[in-house]
């Protein structure tokens, strides 16, 4: 009797846990594991170490001022041929090339020619195949790329590198890129958040203060773009904003701008700002509307009856009550902007590119996933910092989505 009751109680306790299990599994598979893999990828780079274990062991106590000894060359030759056979040589070459630019072709070329090379004097034969084997910097690059765990990608993701003597230094000026992009991303996110707020607040206020039927129509107008594909919305901005586009045509037609000096509204920062503001606007309006709807209109009337003019009533009674919606909308828009990718890629041109476009470039084109992961982690940390600051200043419990 007692035992059965206990069992039932136990069961009752486990039912909620059991119900939450699918969610836990979902979060684990779609969020925690990929995130962990990404973090590992950003510091773990085993390709070269796996391909050249013997060479790297021999190079462990090599003084990097002179060329390595002939047995290093022999080990290298054997491992080059091996990695050509198992087709890992391309990956290895790519990694060494990232450290010492212009060395990508050395490896496969040498491996192929070694088949018919004289093996009695390996250093000489290898240098004959490619003179760069006689260059200390290639060997240094191999040793560097052979480190299984590396902070290289993090350094690179903030425009730093390790110099020859191991000192951390800024990369040469014409290669600096990431700092500019982080700052630009924060600036764009901030600007988009502000403009979303300036446009969204009056709209949300209007929706709450008009009649129900009109409010429904207005809400649909806000929601329809929200339901439309992001790509469609972004490309429509291309059509509207381009040089011979609708907006320029109208401006020329009403005589605001000269036909010869049409405004450059797209393929630059302006395009990115306009399109992103539009795309993210619903994320501002919806939380604002949800919060505003719960503010009883009697408060405003009470303020008016106590002698406040409409402006005072709004500033001192209404606006403070809508703040949870404002902070929710701003936080949502700001964080979404930090990772925005498609819109800047399509309408941003070269100067409207954000950090996420660089992540995409390293994933798809340069295939430097380690660096892409490192940049992503930097962005993620940025998001956490925003969240933390928000919590400190506003309080996350004040956040209201509806």
């Amino acid at each position, binding site marked *: 009797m007692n035992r059965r009751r206990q069992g039932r109680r136990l069961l009752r306790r486990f039912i909620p846990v059991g119900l939450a299990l699918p969610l836990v599994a979902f979060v684990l598979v779609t969020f925690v594991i990929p995130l962990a893999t990404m973090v590992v990828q950003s510091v773990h780079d085993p390709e070269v170490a796996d391909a050249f274990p013997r060479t790297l062991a021999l190079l462990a106590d090599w003084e990097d001022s002179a060329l390595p000894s002939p047995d290093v060359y022999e080990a290298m030759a054997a491992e080059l041929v091996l990695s*050509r056979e198992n*087709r890992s*040589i*391309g*990956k290895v*070459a*790519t990694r060494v*090339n990232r450290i010492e*630019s*212009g060395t*990508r*072709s050395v*490896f*496969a*070329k040498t*491996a*192929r020619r070694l088949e018919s090379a004289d093996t009695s004097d390996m250093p000489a034969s290898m240098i004959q195949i490619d003179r760069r084997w006689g260059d200390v910097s290639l060997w240094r690059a191999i040793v560097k790329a052979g480190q299984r765990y590396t902070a290289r990608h993090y350094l690179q993701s903030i425009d730093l590198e390790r110099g020859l003597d191991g000192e951390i230094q800024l990369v040469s000026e*014409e*290669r*600096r*890129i990431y700092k*500019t*992009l982080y700052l630009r991303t924060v600036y764009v996110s901030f600007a988009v958040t502000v403009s979303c707020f300036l446009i969204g607040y009056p709209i949300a206020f209007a929706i709450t203060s008009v009649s129900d039927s009109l409010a429904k129509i207005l809400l649909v107008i806000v929601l329809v773009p929200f339901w439309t594909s992001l790509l469609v919305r972004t490309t429509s901005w291309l059509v509207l904003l*381009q*040089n*011979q586009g609708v907006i320029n045509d109208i401006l020329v037609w009403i005589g605001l701008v000269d036909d*010869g000096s049409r405004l*450059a509204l797209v*393929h630059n920062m302006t395009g990115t700002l306009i399109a992103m503001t539009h795309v993210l606007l619903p994320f501002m309006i919806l939380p604002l509307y949800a919060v505003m709807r719960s503010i009883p209109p009697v408060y405003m009337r009470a303020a008016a009856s106590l002698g406040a003019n409409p402006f005072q009533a709004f500033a001192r009674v209404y606006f403070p009550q809508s703040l949870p919606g404002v902070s929710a909308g701003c936080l949502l828009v700001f964080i979404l902007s930090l990772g925005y990718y498609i819109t800047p890629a399509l309408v941003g*041109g*070269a*100067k409207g*590119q954000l950090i996420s476009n*660089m992540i995409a*470039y390293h994933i*798809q*084109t*340069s*295939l430097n996933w380690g660096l892409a992961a490192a940049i992503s982690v930097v962005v993620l940390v940025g998001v956490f910092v925003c969240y933390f600051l928000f919590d400190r200043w506003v309080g996350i419990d004040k956040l209201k989505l509806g």
Partner: protein
Amino acid sequence: MKTNRILPTLLWAVAGFGSASLAWAEQTLTVVSFGGSYARACVEGYHKAFTEKTGIRIKLEDYNGGLAQIRAQVDSGSVHWDVVDTESAPLLTGCDEGLFEYVDDLELPPAPDGTPASEDFFDGVLTDCGVGTLIYATVIAFNPEFIEGALPTSIRDFFDLEKYPGRRGMLRAPATNLEFALMGDGVPTEKVFEELSTDEGMRRAFRKLDSIKDHVVWWETGAQPPQMLADGEVVMSTAWNGRIFNAQVQEKQPFVIIWDSHIRDTGTLAIVAGAPNLENARKFVAFATSTQAMVGVAQHISYAPVRHSGLPLVGKHAVTGVDMQPHMPTQPENSRNFLWNDVEWWSERQDELTERFNAWLSR
């Protein structure tokens, strides 16, 4: 009794199905090219003839050149492309990296008059990993409708924002732009790569690009320049000559090509290392580099054959009947002053310059 009969039938069915799908797999070939009017020219020029002759179905895909996608496939061991249409510098790099199959042992068809292929091809277009198919030019083109006053005539005009205000279209990559920049700055064609090899020359090229940077719209696919010129999005653009030609004759666009200081290069077919249909791919490359195939392409788009026997056979445009010869980049009229792309130079520096170019772009 019954089961005795069912089992063999089932086995036959399975075997038949298996071999049918095997046969199906053998009979397709994935060919990757640059899309748009060029890909259409290839389809009309020789893809159809190839399928007709061999029964091998061609699955055509588009890409924007470069090695990234090929590298990704080869490195991950999941190659699904067979034949790729490549530019010559990436071909050389990729060959050194082991991204392409060797085709130097391929038996290429002789010229129609029987001249062996080895003598018929132009010098330097047969390499370890690729067989040349055509000569194309990156040119400056403009739309006279959007230009006031005298029309531009030289590469200097492209960089002259005072004389020709308005936006410019340029390829979103360092290749061709650095060369155009130096030529626009007054460097004679034969000195361009020499100058670019020095630090000061490289800075000079970037400085020249800096002078128009805020007025450049960057293109990535060959179909974009004619589109942007037609829309008035840009007044002048660098472009592949065949794409401009196509817009001129097929869409009746008034575009004009400035042949002075164009950059000439060869297009090549290569086979991705580990291609799933290697044998068919080899057949295809041999077929596609016959004189007839090259002439077939040249009668749809103004890219010149790379066989001696090819050029004289190029006649009229297959659709509009326009005489193709004056539009060929190799035509003496068009060849007064041009730059051959230095493939080795680019193959060595591609990565480094792409990184530098991207950093420059985003500043």
